[in-house]
């Protein structure tokens, strides 16, 4: 909510800008303080002042109220960002994208900036220095809910460029909401990847003393320096404590909680590694880092949709969606089912040369369309089950498969065979 028209006028008439020291008289009372940014939830006729004590209060401006500027806002000193280059140490590219991990607050005005550069982020975590030659660059500054296919493509190209130019690893600070999608996209796009590419986020913003950003970044750096593995990983807290971290395969990971530090979990697989005080322990052999050239195959078929089946899903509503898409991923119920009314849509889409891939909204476990008759009808209609692949990963992979193949049949073959550990034949009993 912004200021009311009158208050806006009064403020500009008084020349009162954010950060100015002002004296406000309203309703028989006088307050002196720094004019703060207007909170979205503040009432439109109130100004917010930071008093000498450091407290903010809202003052309602009514008829007869006055505002007087005592001194204009002080000039803002630009943040100093030093480079932390040290030749001879492993070179790590830090590629900033924005998100909570890069958010910080301006203590003077209280506004939250989502635009901390990668360089500033590195400056703010002194522990990172000394162990590596850190080369930070900011690619975007967006919250991850605003990321799209184009961002993945630019990012994949930037990663390939850095790695081919001599970086030993890339660390990508990223917003957590869609970090799993980006991780999956990079997993498919970076062909011949022989180095670690680690996405890292934070559930508590960097301006807080309790932020998980510094410890997650440190753990990501340790995976790059000590892990010796190639691949795309997501590194976040393994539990609520600041002493244990998990590295997840980029295609297997999902944000499973809205706010906990350990929101990210591997689904249908163990985390690739646990990073603790006493070292890194891997749960599987993985592919060793080799340092060869990587190429970015970034083409994506954007006419692809991700749907979740629900009881009562109306074919009349979704018919046009199926018709307009070249790729359709459905997170089906249970083993991967849709209601029988939806089956004809699958058949028609397949006849139109589109690919219909089926994952399960259970997330845990694999699809199996042979067990019940609905499943067999879906198979007959041309649906392609994707096993224990996450629905989001299936969506990203199908975009990539359609754009990097010559035909629907070839795309279907790509969907069926794992490229980047995104699906597996075995579900172990202890996962």
């Amino acid at each position, binding site marked *: 909510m912004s200021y009311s028209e009158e208050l806006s006028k009064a403020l500009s008439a008084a020349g009162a800008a954010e950060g100015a020291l002002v004296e406000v008289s*309203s309703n028989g*009372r006088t307050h002196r303080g720094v004019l*703060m940014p207007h*909170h979205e*939830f*503040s*009432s439109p006729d*109130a100004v*917010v002042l930071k*008093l000498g*004590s*450091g*407290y*903010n*209060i*809202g*003052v*309602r401006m009514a008829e007869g109220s006055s505002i007087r500027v005592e001194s204009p806002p002080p000039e803002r*000193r630009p*943040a*100093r*960002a030093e480079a932390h280059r040290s030749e001879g140490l492993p070179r790590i590219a830090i590629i900033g994208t924005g998100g909570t991990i890069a958010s*910080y*607050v*301006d*203590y*003077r005005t*209280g506004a*939250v900036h989502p635009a901390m550069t990668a360089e*500033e982020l590195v*400056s*703010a975590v*002194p522990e990172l220095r000394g162990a590596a030659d850190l080369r930070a660059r900011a690619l975007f500054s967006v919250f991850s809910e605003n990321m799209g296919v184009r961002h993945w493509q630019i990012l994949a190209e930037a990663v390939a460029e850095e790695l081919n130019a001599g970086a030993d690893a890339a660390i990508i600070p990223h917003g957590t909401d869609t970090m799993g999608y980006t991780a999956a996209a990079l997993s498919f796009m970076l062909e011949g990847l022989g180095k670690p590419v680690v996405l890292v986020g934070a*559930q*508590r913003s*960097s*301006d*807080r*003393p*309790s*932020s998980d950003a*510094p*410890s997650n970044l440190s753990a990501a750096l340790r995976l790059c320096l000590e892990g010796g593995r190639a691949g795309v990983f997501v590194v976040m807290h393994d*539990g*609520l*404590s*600041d*002493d244990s971290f998990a590295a997840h395969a980029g295609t297997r990971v999902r944000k499973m909680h*809205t*706010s*906990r*530090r350990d929101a990210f979990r591997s689904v249908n697989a163990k985390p690739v590694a646990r990073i603790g005080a006493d070292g890194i322990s891997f749960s599987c052999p993985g592919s060793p880092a080799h340092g060869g050239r990587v190429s970015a195959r970034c083409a994506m078929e954007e006419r692809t949709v991700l749907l979740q089946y629900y009881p009562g899903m109306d074919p009349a509503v979704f018919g046009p969606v199926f018709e307009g898409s070249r790729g359709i991923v459905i997170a089906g119920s249970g083993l991967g089912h849709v209601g029988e009314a939806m089956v004809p849509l699958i058949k028609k889409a397949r006849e139109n040369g589109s690919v219909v891939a089926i994952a399960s909204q259970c997330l845990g476990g694999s699809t199996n369309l042979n067990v019940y008759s609905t499943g067999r009808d879906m198979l007959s209609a041309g649906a392609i089950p994707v096993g224990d692949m996450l629905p989001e990963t299936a969506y990203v992979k199908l975009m990539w498969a359609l754009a990097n193949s010559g035909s629907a049949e070839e795309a279907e073959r790509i969907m069926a065979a794992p490229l980047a550990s995104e699906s597996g034949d075995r579900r172990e009993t202890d996962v």
Partner: protein
Amino acid sequence: MSDEMKCGIEIHQQLDTRKLFCSCGSELCDSGTEVCVRRLRPAAGETGETDRAALEQSKRGLAYRYQRCASSCLVETDDEPPHPVNADALETALTFAAMLGSDVADEIQFMRKIVVDGSNTSGFQRTSLIATGGSVDVNGRSIGVLSVCLEEDAARKIEARGDEVVYRLDRLGIPLIEVATAPDMRTPEEVMEVALRIGTLLRATKRVKRGIGTIREDLNISIPGGARIEIKGVQELRMLPDFVRGEIERQKMLLRVKGILAERGAREIPFEPVDATAAFEGCASKVVKGALDAGGRVVAVRLPGFHGVMNGDGGRLRLGAEMAQYARTAGVKGIFHSDELPNYGIEQALVDSLRGFLGIGPGEAFAICAAPEKRARDALAMAVGRANMALAGVPEETRDPQPDGTTRYSRPLPGAARMYPETDVPPEPVSEERMARVRSSLPELPEQTEARLARDYGVNGQQASQMVRRGRDALFARISDATGMAQAAATALSNTYSEMERDGLDPDSIGDEDVLEAFAMLKGGRFSKEAMPLILREMAAGSAPGAALSKLGLESVGEGDAAAEIARIVAERADFVRSKGTDAIGPLMGPVMGALRGRIDGKRASELLSEEIGKILSGA
């Protein structure tokens, strides 16, 4: 004393609502299980730079272990954003502000106050300014109110061990009203009077917690030429004047030290630590021997010009104690300084040879510290720093109250608090209509409650005032209304409770329902009213009313049993009764009540005794 001191107080009172930013209850628990281990780091400031001192602290690598209770939730571990502010707590704060005549903000903004000692899982305390101005009247003087804030309490420190501190989450997030007065108080006694009055006004809202630890006072004290000292977290009201007096004396002493140092022309001491371990070979001091056996060193510093002020004038000059308190913040047990030696197993010969080793003359001052080398050096650097501050007089400090009425250095006063908006909690508008509603339904003032108790229940003024001051008036009214035993209830909740407190029991730990039950049992004749104090004591120790009664064996005796017991006592003393006649009643009441105290009403016992004596005298 009026031009000698200035004192203001801050009172923190826990509210009896759910937590301020989550729906957890606000009861403390006796045990906890570890839920997570965290580290806090100072966040980068507006310039993108991190505060050096705070970074230094975080480099010490303290780990904070948090224990959860049955009531803990993700908001408390900082794993979920705060919920909207608790409506009951806010309403109570608005009510209290209105009672003081304070000026309530049109829109309340929650702030984050950075605190990186682990006591807040988030690394900040959420706090808001509710109102400014207002006053409280005490003994005809009007004491100004600076501010009324609503904030969250911190986690409870359970223990500190090595590089770890253990906190329990039960206290974290309990709403606190913080009221700060102007530095208007002029005597130590007035400080207590004002604290009492504010406490009584808080309790009049009927929404505050009672009992030990639910109200805490901070004192801000200065004397002319001294400095502002904050004594933080006094829990015992009656000790306030002691702390005030002690602080005035301490500041006067430091001003004397300053004068002496100036007279001598003492100058700032450079910090030049010397490894003096060699001089301590075979030293008998347990402290030194223990440190050396553990691989530590003895480090020494020269303190030119500081002899006789560290401990001098018959113990009245005590700069050494202040230096030792600073030194302890570096993690050592203490230091030895030349004003207190020879002592502690360090003999004169050693002191002399140490002076020789340091190249200083007899009578010149020094200090030593025996500990792991780095720690010993850090400790002496703090001690020398503190000695140098004495040249300027009294340094501004936050100090911790000790149970013996003294205080200890805790940390420098925080600078302008780094506060920034809590962006996760929307601001709370306070409309004029809402405040008009609050003002029109303010709670009864304490003096009005006292008058009502006297009028409606016939309680005497002193008992009424005591119950109101201690927030026990509502319970009193409930008991009286339920049982009609107003006099017994007033005696229990004022006189008995005071006696229990004098003996170190906490009567407020007894639940209201249990007290009501005890009175219902009394009314039902389960025990006599003489037994009530003993039963309440047993209940304060943790027993339920019924259990207390049977544990103490105070069940009422039947008329027949009592008469038989009295007959036995009289028969044993038949000769005495015959010689004294009816005058024997008085002396025999002693043994009778000794046998039946609490199990029979005293008046009835006297009647039965009289009957039995009559029987003997009539020769029956």
